[in-house]
């Protein structure tokens, strides 16, 4: 009984199987990538103005990527990051306040639900009047898109705390501030991350739409300009930059979550 063998020590054979499986998964992904691009190349090259095709996109990328797309991308990312940096603490704060303080819950829930269901795009005309075609406008659109899923998930997380664990905290004479810090917050962390991931998605689409409708720079603007002149391959360069960026972004968020919640799940262990 005193043998304290870490579970990972005993999992050697399983992890070897898992790594072999991962290799096969990667091979499969590479294969599917080759197939998709080949089919696209064959179909697309017969009608380059309609769908474009990978070789044309590659050519356009060589010409446009460094001088045009990357500076625009940087502008987009700065607006996105700023918006998320504003939305996250506000969303988490309001979510916890609503989850823990009944008055806040009762007072704010109708607004949150109403605004969450309203398309943010509908707000753009008003926001243009207030803020102009500016950096602030794009940041506001991102923050508005991201803040609500973060609020709603943080709220859900703070409501889903195991009551037995709360009792455990109380039995050790924890006050409400200690309960929040030692139980409610760690227990809610996976929920907050879920909200943050949805928030990122809404933030990305928000910044692109804002740039398309009311900005002079950014990836969204570039896409609109290229599309206007039927430069479909150039539009796809921007789309792919965005796609690859999203891929890395979500992988990064998953790693940060792994690092911040090394215990696995928040289910009470029996």
């Amino acid at each position, binding site marked *: 009984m005193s043998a304290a063998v870490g579970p990972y020590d005993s999992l050697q054979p399983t992890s070897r199987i898992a790594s072999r499986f991962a290799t096969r998964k990667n091979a499969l992904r590479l294969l599917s990538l080759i197939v998709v691009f080949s089919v696209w190349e064959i179909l697309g090259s017969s009608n380059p103005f309609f769908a474009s095709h990978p070789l044309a996109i590659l050519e356009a990328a060589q010409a446009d990527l460094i001088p045009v797309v990357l500076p625009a991308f940087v502008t987009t990312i700065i607006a996105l990051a700023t918006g998320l940096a504003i939305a996250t603490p506000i969303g988490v704060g309001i979510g916890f306040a609503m989850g823990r303080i009944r008055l806040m819950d009762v007072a704010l829930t109708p607004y949150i639900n109403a605004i969450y269901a309203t398309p943010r795009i509908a707000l753009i005309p008003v926001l243009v009047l207030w803020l102009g075609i500016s950096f602030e406008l794009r940041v506001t659109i991102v923050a508005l898109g991201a803040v609500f899923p973060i609020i709603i998930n943080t709220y859900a997380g703070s409501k889903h705390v195991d009551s037995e664990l709360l009792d455990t905290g109380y*039995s050790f004479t924890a006050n409400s501030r200690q309960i929040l810090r030692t139980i409610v917050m760690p227990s809610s962390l996976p929920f907050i991350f879920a909200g943050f991931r949805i928030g990122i998605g809404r933030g990305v689409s928000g910044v692109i739409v804002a740039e398309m409708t009311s900005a002079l720079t950014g990836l969204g603007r570039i896409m609109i300009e290229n599309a206007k002149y039927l430069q479909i391959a150039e539009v796809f360069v921007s789309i792919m930059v965005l796609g690859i960026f999203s891929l890395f972004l979500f992988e990064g968020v998953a790693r940060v979550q792994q690092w911040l919640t090394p215990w696995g799940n928040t289910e009470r262990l029996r």
Partner: protein
Amino acid sequence: MVNVNKAFATSGGKVLDDFNLKVRPGEFVSLIGPSGCGKTTALRIVAGLLSPSNGKVVVNGQDSLGPSRDKAIVFQHFNLFPWRTALDNVAYGLEIHGMKKKERHQIAREYLSLVGLSESEKQFPSQLSGGMRQRIGIARALAINPKLLLMDEPFGALDALTREYLQGQLARICEERNLTTLFVTHSIDEAIYLSDRVVVMGVKPGRIIEEFPISLRKPRAEYNFRAEPEYAKVREEIWELLEQQIRKTSEAVAV
């Protein structure tokens, strides 16, 4: 020295009626009774997690309604914090009391080694077996050096062998440290093994119906106490009482 006595009656559905129990310092008292007799309710009232509709809990001569630093509880389902390592789980109470990290870790290590888990201090509960988790639950309760240890069917969720092993460990720790313990259980055998006194509770309303002092020599792990005549006699008497109570519950359901 420690002096625990409590008296309360709960009305409003009468979960508990006229429940009076004194636990002497250093004494190990078991509460045993059929489901629904209010033994867990009684324990939670003593712990301060529930309030009695009237009556009071007195620990060491002072009224003790609500949680306090001199009481610690071990839960049936362990209730470890999944986001804390074994060490930080054990140190939880001390952290809540405001003790500095270095100090509380040092104390937590002592208690981890008391329950034989020194080597698991960095592991999360999800990486440990049920028996190991409950040993951490016990270490967490003992780490605040409580005057009264409360245990709510602590071995109820464990398999039979682990349970037997942990009963032995608990008996040893309680004797070495002269702990005052109130222990809720379903198991007559467990109650007799560990206790100085077994309190049998009845249903409808939940109340104390009989008390049995257990004079079997300690430590009981060192000889076959189950072969003693006293064991068989007390076990039989407790079972008869409990059987009546269980029949009372099932008849009520049948009607």
